């Protein structure tokens, strides 16, 4: 799992909060599959591995910021 907050060695984009923000930004008000979202996410953050993407999604899901139905994600 990525760091929580940015510090001297970790830029914002590499933190869990930053990654979650990128995911939310990508989704906007659209509904899309996890696969589609990952493809877009990887373009936005090429060096982030899938696990970070999954952690960011789970955080957003737990917080109620996104919903999940039949493999389709949607902003909450």
């Amino acid at each position, binding site marked *: *799992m990525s760091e*929580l907050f940015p510090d001297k060695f970790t830029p914002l984009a590499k933190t*869990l*909060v930053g990654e979650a923000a990128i995911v939310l930004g990508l989704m906007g008000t659209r509904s899309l599959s*996890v*696969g589609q979202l*990952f493809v877009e996410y*990887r373009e936005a953050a*090429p*060096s982030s*591995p*899938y*696990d970070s993407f*999954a*952690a960011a*999604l*789970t*955080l957003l*899901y*737990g*917080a*109620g910021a996104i919903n*999940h139905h039949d493999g389709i994600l949607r902003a909450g």
Partner: protein
Amino acid sequence: MFKPGFNAVVAERAPDSTDQDSRNARGKSTLLAILNYILGGTFDKKMQVLADNGWEFTLELQLFGGTVSATRTLAAGKNLHITANGDAKAFIAPYLVEGQITVEEWKDLLGLGLFRLEPSEEKVTGGISVRTLLSYVIRTEAPKDPLKIVAVQSATSSREHIAFLLDLDWTVVLDLANVDKGLQQLKTITAAARDGLVTTLRPESDLALERAALLNEVEEWEGRIEGFRILEDPNSLVQRADELTAQISVLRDEAVVDGRMRSLYTSSLTDDTDAPATAIDVEALFAAAGAVLADGFVRQMRDVAAFHASLLTNRRAFLHSEIESLDDRIAVRKAELSRLDEQRAGTLRTLDAGGALDELNALRNELATVQAHLAAVDLQIEQARELVTTREDLKLQQSTLRKGASEQLAGSRQKLDHVGAQFSQKMHRLYGKDAALTVEVDNAGYKFTVTVPGSGSSGVDRMKLFCFDLTLLEEGAASARHPDFLVHDSVVFDGVDPRQLANALRFAQEMVQTTGGQYICTINSNDIPPDVLEEPWFKGGIVRSILDTEVGGLLGREF
């Protein structure tokens, strides 16, 4: 032949002598040359005839608590034959091989026995030499400056040996001389650099100016290369080559990124993805949510864990497809890179054929030349700074040594003042004028100065030397830095007023009588004041009279 006290070797006029006879060339100076030769000096070529006839000379010395007898042959005198009695016998025995000693070891022994000079001190390059010390006590020359043995003796050598004879630390003089030598060399280098004689060494200000000019030149060449255009280039080949280079560069950068991504995904695939690990992940996320979100998780933990698990189920599939698509991209890029490389090579070949590439290369060579020059100037700046640092180090060393010498001088002041007073007293008795022997410290160590009114007159200069030598003899009795004998060749009395000469000889006699030393002089009878000639001590002190009619003079042999 010589006794304790006053000794004189006199060249006399025989009653039956003619105008063709002379008191000169009677062998007085030869006597001193022989003395020096036995005491480790060099062979005087004038005596070659005697050497061919197998002559050898023997000297007896009181040394190391006994009598030492040293015999040296004129021919092949690399070794001396030594015999000794009393304590000296045991002391010298280790140095002897079948009763013989080498000249070098003999000099070591003489240094030790006559001046308390340690052999190690004699081995120092540019240090104290026993032969030089002996030249202060066997005077065959009479330079104007009594602090020297010959007029051409270097100041450093004179200062070192006088410091030694006066029991001061002579090494200070040597160390300061070396520091001064270094500073002089730096001065020479700097001056030569300033005059442009050493092109690699110039003042830093000049180099800084040149460096600025070179930097401008580098910039100019770089600009010309960047803006390089071929006038006869209808197909814009150079531009095309540049574009291709840029494209290739971008593709290569991308290839690096993709390569990294691929290894990232590959390592993600091999990661363990067990359920417990996943659970820990969600736990951690839950904790993180507490820190990040105001309300923490709004969903049930169970719910969130199930969502996370579903995401991870797809993980392998995602990663596999991602690696595949990366591999595709890498393969496509590789082909593209080959194609572009080939295109660029073709373009460059075409350019080369037209000579344009030569022109560009020439520009690049110019740039490389200027850059090399710039690097050389940078190095020179470094060297110029190093010179300054070295100078400062030497200056510091100089002041440290000077300080030490001044402190030592302060400690010896009482003794040196006494020496000065003794010298002054002698000159006063001879001339009725005050004279001074002073010691101070300057950048070359101890500076000894003998000040006598009327110096410059040869008679006064001779007597200055005479009084200085007698003072050293007198002081040496206490410091043991002197062998307690003093030998003066007749040259010391040349041009001296008979009245002063009479007093000087009386002086010498009085002094050796009180200190128990030995004074030996060679002199022509006509130089001796008549009243001195009549005095019993002088008559009794004549150890040899050489008549001007004697065949072969002192040695009874013409050579």
